[in-house]
């Protein structure tokens, strides 16, 4: 089953009235040759007229402005997605020692994906990870990236709450822990410092019970909002790596948006007026859309509500961390 019906609800509860809430939503799954977004609908509560546009990276952004006073703000994104087989790293390919000759060209052609970014600065600790991956890999570029992903998976602890939504790789390097957002950032940092273009992928991981032949316990953290990275392998193209899961990209990885790091692609980002604390809950549910024999199966992944500190300022911001 690789056709999913997805319902992603994000709800903000305020302990006082807020107003003039302006939000950008990045929840529409990518539609390209590896994934088809068959339908998408965004509704808001309170009701609002939603407009949309495509940004410079090709992501769809929906914009909703809600002016009247409210204490609860809910976004419901409903989509149907068909996921195709993702390309795996091809055996062989470019040798790591040949990469240096290509570095200047890659830097010019893919600047945004190679340069350090706000959440992913170049740090000496990342070069150490790079060194150990380089020593243990088979000498190919693809092998190096896989070894990096494995090293991060082995040496960092997946721990919910260890980091927060605005943590950079600096924090996870100190803590040796983090969530999928941090794991993805670590991988980006290491391969970029080595000269390879890499981009942050915001998306979903369909839980084991809904996915094809996967085990339930593989769904880490019990939350379906997920992040990983795609790396540009010269000669082959963009290939995904999931350092959180430690497994290859499968049919249960659904891509929603590309960015330099999390900062480019928060699922919901907004500003509002009013002096009220906020709490946020995210709930993602999957249901395989009609399977080949015409039957529907149901499976749900429900998220734990996450508390976040209120920011009593004139124009507070709203954000949710990717797990």
């Amino acid at each position, binding site marked *: 089953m690789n056709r999913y019906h997805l319902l992603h609800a994000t709800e903000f509860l305020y302990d006082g009235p807020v107003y*003039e809430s302006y939000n950008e939503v990045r929840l529409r799954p990518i539609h390209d040759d590896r994934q088809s977004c068959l339908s998408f609908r965004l509704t808001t509560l309170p009701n609002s007229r939603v407009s949309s546009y495509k*940004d410079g990276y090709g992501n769809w952004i929906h914009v909703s*402005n809600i002016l009247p006073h409210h204490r609860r703000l809910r976004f419901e994104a409903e989509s149907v997605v068909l996921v195709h087989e993702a390309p795996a790293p091809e055996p062989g390919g470019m040798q790591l020692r040949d990469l240096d000759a290509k570095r200047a060209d890659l830097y010019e052609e893919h600047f945004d994906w190679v340069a350090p970014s706000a959440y992913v600065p170049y740090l000496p600790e990342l070069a150490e990870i790079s060194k150990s991956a380089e020593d243990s890999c088979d000498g190919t570029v693809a092998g190096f990236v896989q070894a990096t992903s494995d090293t991060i998976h082995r040496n960092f602890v997946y721990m919910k709450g260890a980091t927060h939504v605005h943590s950079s790789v600096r924090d996870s390097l100190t803590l040796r822990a983090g969530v999928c957002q941090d794991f993805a950032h670590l991988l980006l940092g290491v391969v970029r410092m080595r000269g390879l273009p890499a981009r942050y992928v915001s998306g979903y991981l369909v839980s084991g019970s809904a996915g094809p032949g996967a085990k339930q316990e593989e769904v880490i953290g019990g939350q379906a909002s997920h992040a990983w990275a795609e790396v540009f392998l010269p000669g082959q193209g963009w290939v995904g790596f999931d350092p959180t899961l430690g497994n290859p990209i499968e049919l249960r990885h659904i891509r929603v948006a590309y960015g330099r790091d999390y900062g480019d692609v928060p699922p919901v980002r907004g500003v509002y007026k009013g002096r009220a604390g906020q709490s946020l809950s995210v709930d993602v549910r999957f249901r395989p859309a009609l399977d080949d024999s015409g039957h529907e199966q149901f499976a749900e992944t429900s998220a734990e509500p996450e508390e976040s500190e209120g920011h009593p300022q004139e124009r507070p911001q709203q954000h949710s961390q990717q797990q």
Partner: protein
Amino acid sequence: MCLDRGLFSGYTAGPFYDEMFSSQGAARSHYARLLEKLGGMAPSQFEERRKLADLSFLLQGITFTVYSDGRGTERLFPFDLIPRILPQSEWAHIEAGLTQRVVALNLFLQDVYGKQQILKDRKIPSSLVYSCRHFRREMMGLEVPHGIYTHVCGIDLVRDSSTGEFYVLEDNVRTPSGISYVLENRLVMTRAFPEAFHEHEVLPVAHYPSELSRILRMLSPRGESESQIVLLTPGIHNSAYFEHSFLAQQMGIELVEGSDLIVDGVVVYMKTIYGLKRVDVIYRRVDDDFLDPLCFRSDSMLGVPGLMGAYRAGNVALANTPGNGVADDKAIYAFVPTLIKYYLGEDPVLRSVETYLCDRSDHLSHVLTNLPKLVVKSVGESGGYGMLMGPSAARAEIEAFRERIMSEPRNYIAQPIVPLSVVPSYDSAAQCMAGRHVDLRPYCLYDGQKVTIVPGGLTRVALQPGSLVVNSSQGGGSKDTWVLRGEC
């Protein structure tokens, strides 16, 4: 002309190009008539006119604010009564050069936020564009009204004493300020020296507000007849607030702050006592960073949330266009002659100052070994902030800059010091005329077809003896700039 008496007695031109006197000490032909008039004046008479002019500025509240002294002081912009005069032939050359430059910069902005052909053709390193702090990815693929980015440009020119030629020193295509001083200086000058304007055919500058307002009206998405235009200011604490209120009043448009506007759906409205009024065009004097907290810096209190959504939907026009900062980045400056050649197939009319890019290793080593001879500038700054003047800097200051350059080379460029030309200016302490260095900032308006430049522009003058820094924020003053209809 003998300089043995009156105002100019004892004046010597010195080693720099003197705008008024040729190297032999004779007045240049376009200054002859003025010198004849002023030369006969007693210092006391001149002093009287000077006080009249100062009073006129004070009474009209023509001020600016200096940030760096920690007091946020509002000051009078010092005005020097000796005008800077340009004969028609020199102005025609400048005008042709600026026109070419504005059109090329506009084409560059269309391209980098569109197809990026110039990057694909490798005429400019794409890393240089993408690493520019003011390159706005939010503007990519966005179609802007009439394809105009550079509605208002202020391009700084200097005359190099060693060649006598004009060079472009920097482009200002974000929210250049200073035009209000051009208009006010002329007004005060006609009061202080009414008779001088009978004797010279000075080209007028007063049509600037009506020309700007014509372009703004033209941008209205609902058509010119139904166009509500506003000027968006950061507020009274901004250094150019005087200019914002002055221009709004001159153009007969509303002066608003971010909190006066609201976006509903994808339409911008102005809050008035009669209810919400739809806004069509915003002449914004708020920086990109602060324009829309949803799109740019989320901690901005100055902007209008949702504004970029309305802009993207084509319901409101903005001048200047967001993202222009990539075109006046001081490292991109080094490539402007390339841009002119690439887009227009022409050679640049005006020359550029030799520029070293600190993120190129060969340039960097040259810069680091020659710091005491160079001027170093931070690429994204303007107004004379973040700058090192090598020859006049203390050793410690140079070393501090060396550290900054090495830790962030992309952020700095260096240029040789240009020996700026001088214009005689009144030194009120010594009660005599002395040569002071000047630059020239003409203001260019672009409607997508034609570049209009009010003749002259703002001549800024470094009033401290020997100083080469003319920025008002760094203690500079200004002069009225005359472009003559003929040669003298």
